[in-house]
């Protein structure tokens, strides 16, 4: 379990170090408080998937892959495809990440990413319908943390969004003609996903009442609070999660302003690296 409250002796020393730097408006890796680490984005890294992306934020590494299956729509949304997001920490990611059923941290992370995608209405799910009320496409976003050096939400969102932007999916009209969905789906003509928005998530850590962008794992442990905010391309807030800690009321609004800026920076970066939108 990824338990940021765990305070071993070495954690405490690290926290002191981190705090000392932050008090001087510096960070241990030389970054400015509002600066992201180097961001690497590679798409199409897994050819077997319909879309995929490899993202590294410094030493944090995430891979996302997109798959499709046919299925029955939910009874309350007969004219919508189904979006499913499942994220796991691979046991390669850290000493704490052991194999087993998903932990509450993994479930929270998956659901935060899912809300970012879903609430921004990034994908037009009505375009995933094969026969209304009977058969639709299920879009699976699977992502994995391969190495954890903090800020998993931003990294996972970047991976999921980049994978989706470069996904080609089975044309539902052609799927309707299949005899054996399961065997033949992968050979159906593929068309680009109907993208309507590009949500971006920025997570802010509060250390010594200063706001830091893209916290590393030691910074997360040192932080008094961690807040993830997702914006649409039109600057609406579409998802928010206080991952940990407590905030003053005014801190919330100060953070929102920082996030709004960084979110634009990040979206431009993705567009330049991935295209789409």
């Amino acid at each position: 379990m990824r338990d940021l409250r765990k305070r071993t002796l070495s954690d405490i020393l690290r926290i002191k170090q981190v705090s000392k730097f932050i008090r001087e408006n510096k960070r241990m890796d030389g970054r400015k408080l509002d600066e992201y680490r180097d961001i690497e984005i590679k798409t199409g890294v897994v050819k077997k998937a319909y879309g995929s992306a490899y993202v590294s934020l410094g030493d944090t590494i995430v891979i996302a892959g997109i798959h499709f299956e046919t299925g029955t729509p939910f009874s309350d949304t007969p004219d919508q495809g189904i979006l499913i997001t499942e994220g796991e920490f691979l046991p390669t990611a850290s000493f704490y990440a052991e194999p087993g059923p998903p932990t509450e941290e993994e479930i929270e992370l998956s659901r935060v990413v899912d809300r970012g995608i879903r609430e921004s209405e990034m994908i037009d799910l009505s375009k995933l319908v094969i026969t209304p009320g009977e058969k639709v496409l299920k879009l699976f976003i699977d992502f994995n943390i391969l190495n954890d050096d903090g800020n998993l939400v931003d990294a996972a969102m970047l991976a999921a969004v980049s994978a989706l932007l470069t996904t080609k999916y089975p044309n539902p009209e052609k799927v309707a003609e299949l005899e054996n969905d399961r065997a033949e789906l992968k050979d159906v003509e593929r068309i680009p996903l109907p993208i309507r928005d590009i949500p971006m998530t920025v997570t802010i850590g509060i250390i010594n009442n200063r706001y830091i962008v893209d916290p590393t794992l030691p910074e997360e442990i040192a932080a008094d609070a961690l807040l993830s905010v997702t914006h649409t391309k039109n600057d609406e807030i579409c998802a928010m999660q206080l991952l940990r800690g407590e905030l003053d009321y005014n801190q919330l609004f100060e953070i929102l302003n920082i996030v709004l800026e960084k979110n634009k920076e990040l979206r431009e970066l993705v567009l330049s690296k991935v295209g789409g939108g």
Partner: protein
Amino acid sequence: MSKSKEEYIRRDGRKVDELRPYSIRTGIFKNADGSAEIRLGGNWIVAAVYGPKEHFPKFQISQDEAILNCRYHMAPYSTSERKSPKPSRREIELSKVIKSALEKAVLLEAFPEMSIDVYIEVLQAEGSTRVASITAASVALADAGIPMRDMVVGCSAGKVDGHIILDVGEYEDKEGEADLPIAIMPNLKKIVLLQMDGKLTHSEFREAFELALKGAMQLYEAQVNALVSKVKEMGEIEEAEE
């Protein structure tokens, strides 16, 4: 959206800044160390606290502070379609964020090597259950006599038909444009739970947040009253016994 904020009447007859009818009771379970019940509109939620108590297994204990366990769970009959009794991913996430919020209020450092269990059961769900749950859980903790830095009280705001509204009901949750559940420590003025989904501009968000704060302060009074009436009852019983 043609109607003004003052004129807009919600599907259940409420004004935009009106809470549903609510009540909070404490001491409802005999076995638990503390317990509470909240009714908020059609929501019926109970919470029980066991602890502080010895923690098992030993290798998990914390030398510095108590471990707080928290389960948010919905009864199979609490919703209009039957809910499997097995915890869903949603229930696991909500357990985590509620735990994370309560941890900021409880003086965990007072009970090293112990654990405190908070069990929340939604008996009937009608929108905004997570914030009603945390409100009840906080009262149950106080009822158990567990020392706290402050109460925790939750409330939601949202956006429906273009209006920012207080205390999101079930219909408003499903059909509305945004949902913002928050929980605060009302005296310390700290946010300890904050989630959002839907779409809000920054100015709408501010309006919704301030509305939710207002609702939370109103519910905080009900928390205090519930605890006070219990103390009074106990006093009366003691007097009667004398």
